[in-house]
């Protein structure tokens, strides 16, 4: 900080001293360095230019860097030019046209890449103090992308004068990162690293990793350097490393031995051993030894020779950063960060799991009504989900506004699948209440028919169901934790449905009658309830909810004729695991399956197929121990 202060003061002082001069005169003083600049000599000129402290300096530096400055041979002055031959000469201070010159009298100033780099660094301090916040942010972005040691001082100098609080905070955090990497004093760096260790941003972690870059090496003795670790590579890798470092002779591979033997066949024998017996690896070694003993080929490197060579050397990796205190601090900081990031990732994973659970819940809640409450297996439930999704798609074709079309699609999807459910109940399921296994098969028949009809109408390719613009994007907490709005929307929808179903079943006349028919149809009928009508309505309700779930799932996944089949087994699992005949059970089942699947995916992230496999195995075993599910009904409600 002291350095920065001194620097800032010195700049102010120098600027005051040079105020009398103008840009052109400074340039004339250094005209040699500017016209034919080299990386080394140009620094003096740039320092003087900066000391001048005039507002046109940054512009000049930019144009100089962009090869847009010309020297007029006639008066030796520097100008910008405009127009065509003869060019207008523009004064570098005032920006006014002061004369004309033909092309032949002008020489373009072409700084090389090294000089342009030096100019760029000098420019940073101007950009960092630029009145335009956009340009300051752009300069900060450039530093964050590709930081270097010489940006440290201009950045530190620019902080005090920064008016914008957000940019100031950004500058301070960047300064800390640059200090951690390039600071002069070890204490400063360690302090910066420790300050950074509380952050979880990708940038901060990248800084630690940049500090901790290391190189592998091998030698007979451990070198006097900042050693990262002593390695113990595998036998083959270790020997290959020795060979690569010229510390050992290359060993012959089995293939090379084979070709050596093939080249030394004499009258059907190699080293006195018949070729026909060489299918035995030991015989090959013996033959090679015989050749080596006779001096025909180089002696064979045996396993024990190689092991001895490996034992005689030490394998290590050494940090590029020479100061151990810095790397130690960085290692500790990285560990701390990883712990924090791990906690964040757990939170992120939990949110993922909740949103997956919401999807399973939406897919299964309709089934919980038809299967759970009525005991009817509906294999076509997945196809009702598909019908809902396609209804949403068709409505989007008619109503182009996405927000309106989704709002219209939800009730229409409910109506369509409600009607389909009622029709199916009346035509098929009603006749099969006493034969549940056959309900399974009949509804399966309907399922394949519906799937094929959808394929015939909409084709096999996936149809998009576009979510409205306000559902795009994600709620970002930090670099680790983020959740997309669409998942939040699905979660909200799932909660709404939970409340709705609970309300219908517990608080309405329909719900009362449904529960009565579920528990004892005969008694319910004698109380004046029409079980036929109730069954029909219940089935319609369950199917209608599947339709709405279809719209929600369609927004999140693709709409295909097979999308229902993807959810049907999971949905049954959800209902069975949760406990049949209970909405809370479905919620518990969906949560368990959602969290379980995400958990297994987290342990084996490359493989979602394996996650599903293990999850199903887990469920099969789970059912062994709780055959009635998590929330088992007791007493009369349990039925048979």
């Amino acid at each position, binding site marked *: 900080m002291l350095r920065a202060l001194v620097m800032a003061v010195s700049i102010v002082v120098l600027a005051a001293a040079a105020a009398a001069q103008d840009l052109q005169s400074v340039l004339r003083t250094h005209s040699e360095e500017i016209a034919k600049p080299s990386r080394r000599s140009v620094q003096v000129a740039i320092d003087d230019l900066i000391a001048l402290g005039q507002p046109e300096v940054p512009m000049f530096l930019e144009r100089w860097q962009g090869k847009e400055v010309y020297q007029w041979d006639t008066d030796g002055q520097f100008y910008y030019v405009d127009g065509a031959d003869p060019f207008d000469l523009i004064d570098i201070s005032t920006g006014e046209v002061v004369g004309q010159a033909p092309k032949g009298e002008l020489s373009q100033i072409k700084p090389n890449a090294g000089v342009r780099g030096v100019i760029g660094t000098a420019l940073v301090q101007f950009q960092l103090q630029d009145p335009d916040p956009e340009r300051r942010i752009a300069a900060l972005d450039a530093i964050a992308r590709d930081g270097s040691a010489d940006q440290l001082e201009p950045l530190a100098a620019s902080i005090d004068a920064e008016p914008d609080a957000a940019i100031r905070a950004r500058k301070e955090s960047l300064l800390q990162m640059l200090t951690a990497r390039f600071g002069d004093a070890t204490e400063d760096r360690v302090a910066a690293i420790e300050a950074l260790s509380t952050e979880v941003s990708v940038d901060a972690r990248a800084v630690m990793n940049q500090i901790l870059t290391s190189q592998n090496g091998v030698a007979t003795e451990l070198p006097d350097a900042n050693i990262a670790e002593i390695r113990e590579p595998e036998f083959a890798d270790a020997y290959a490393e020795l060979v690569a470092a010229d510390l050992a002779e290359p060993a012959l591979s*089995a293939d090379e031995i*084979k070709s050596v*033997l*093939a080249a030394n*066949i004499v009258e059907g024998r190699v080293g006195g051993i018949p*070729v*026909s017996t*060489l*299918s*035995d*690896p030991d015989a*090959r070694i013996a033959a090679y030894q015989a050749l080596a003993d006779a001096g025909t080929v180089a002696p064979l490197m045996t396993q024990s020779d190689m092991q001895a060579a490996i034992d005689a050397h030490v394998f290590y990796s050494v940090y590029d950063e020479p100061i151990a205190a810095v790397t130690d601090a960085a290692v500790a900081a990285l560990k701390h960060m990883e712990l924090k990031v791990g906690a964040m990732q757990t939170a992120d994973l939990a949110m993922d799991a909740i949103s997956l659970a919401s999807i399973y819940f939406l897919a299964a809640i309709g089934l919980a009504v038809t299967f759970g409450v009525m005991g009817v*297996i509906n*294999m076509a439930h997945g196809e009702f989900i598909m019908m809902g999704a396609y209804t949403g798609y068709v409505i989007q074709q008619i109503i182009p506004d996405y927000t309106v079309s989704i709002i219209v699609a939800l009730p229409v999807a409910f109506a369509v699948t409600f009607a389909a459910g009622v029709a199916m109940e009346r035509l*098929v399921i009603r*006749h*099969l209440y006493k*034969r*549940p*296994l*056959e309900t*399974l*098969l*009949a509804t*399966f*028949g*309907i*399922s*394949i*028919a*519906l*799937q*094929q*009809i959808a*394929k*015939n109408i909409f084709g096999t390719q996936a149809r998009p169901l576009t979510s409205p613009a306000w559902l795009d994007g994600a709620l970002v907490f930090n670099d680790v934790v983020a959740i997309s709005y669409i998942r939040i929307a699905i979660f909200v929808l799932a909660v709404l449905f939970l409340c709705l179903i609970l309300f219908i079943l517990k608080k309405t006349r329909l719900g009362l009658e449904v529960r009565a028919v579920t528990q004892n149809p005969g008694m319910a009928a004698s109380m004046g309830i029409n079980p036929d009508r109730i069954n029909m309505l219940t089935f319609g309700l369950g199917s209608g909810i599947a339709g709405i779930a279809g719209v929600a799932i369609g927004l999140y996944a693709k709409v295909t004729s097979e999308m229902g*089949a993807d959810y049907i*087994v999971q949905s*049954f*699992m959800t209902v*069975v695991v949760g406990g049949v005949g209970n909405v809370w059970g479905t919620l518990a089942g969906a949560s368990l399956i959602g969290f379980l699947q995400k958990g297994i995916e987290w342990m084996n992230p490359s*493989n979602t*197929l*394996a996650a*599903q*496999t293990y999850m*199903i*195995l887990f*469920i*099969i*075993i789970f*059912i*062994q*121990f709780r*055959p009635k599910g998590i929330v088992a009904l007791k007493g009369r409600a349990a039925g048979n």
Partner: protein
Amino acid sequence: MKNSFLVTNRSVLVFLLCLALFTLGVTVLAEATGAGVISTSFVKTLGKTLCLCLIAIAMDVVWGYCGILSLGHFAFFGIGGYAIGMWLMYARTHDIVVGSLSNDVIPATSAEISDAIGTQIFGVVGSSEFPLIWAFAHSLPLQLAAVVIVPGLLALVFGWLAFRSRVTGVYLSILTQAMTLALSLYLFQNDSGLRGNNGLSGLQNMPGSDLGQDVLSIRFFWASAVALGLGYVLFAFVISGKMGSVIRAIRDDEARVRFLGYHVESYKLFVFTITAMVAGIAGALYYPQAGIINPAEIAPIASIYLAVWVAIGGRGRLYGAVIGATFVSLLSSWFTGGGAPNIDLGFYEIVWTDWWLVLLGLSFVLVTLLFPKGIGGLFDYITINREKGPKA
């Protein structure tokens, strides 16, 4: 004993007679052995159909007689196919590799041969190591044993777990379906050790034999016919007599059988396991005729189709399952193969390759609703009429 069993089960004799006549007919008409009226590919189709009939009667025993609607028997079928496929693929690749290495001056070591085979087989999934489950792939007898033992063991463990905790009815169906789904998802992974979704291919070639496909196809057809005949007799034996009565009683009222003192779980476990083993055999005969097996074959839908065949053919009678499997699978290949003429309605043309599944699905609903006895139920009319005949 055997005699009396066959005498009391006349339908078994009739079936065996029909099967023998059919086999003889196909042999006489096939390319390799007779007139050449039936093409090699059609002989394969018929042979595959016989294998499907075999698994269908297994399904009929477990569902139609014992009342367990298993949606996992096609998984056992697939496991049988994989078990034999591993040997076929290994042995054939071994022959090819040894053939190409024999040109080398230095004879190859067994490690080199095994590496080359591994690279050949597992190259498609980016590996060259033999997974553990291929440990016995070199041995035909061991893999043949695996055809029966692996499905049997899996069924035994799964059935023991499920029946022990009294999982019945639709719950059991869903559980078996989940098992099938888990298995097929597992096989879809590249690191499952069975070549992921590439599956095993080239199974139609018999290692160590230079017989043409025409001869091989008729031999597999014979083998399938023999297996079907033996399977039919085995299951007819299982479901006859006292044991058969207990099994049917379990279907009709499990609790009552348990109260009578029978150990229901053992009977169910026996039926479940033995049908799984027969399903494995059927698969082992089917896939060499199909030439390729991949995880999609094991998907839960296949097992449901199996139930569909049995339901359409008629549950609770073995010949019903045979009729159902033959009828639906042949009809299916006729429709999807473009054999059926398309119907032009003027405003819309019904293309059967697109609409066959709709027809199948709907006819399935109709059969379940209106003819629960399936096609086999038609035989009842004949026998009932005949019995009535003399009295009237």
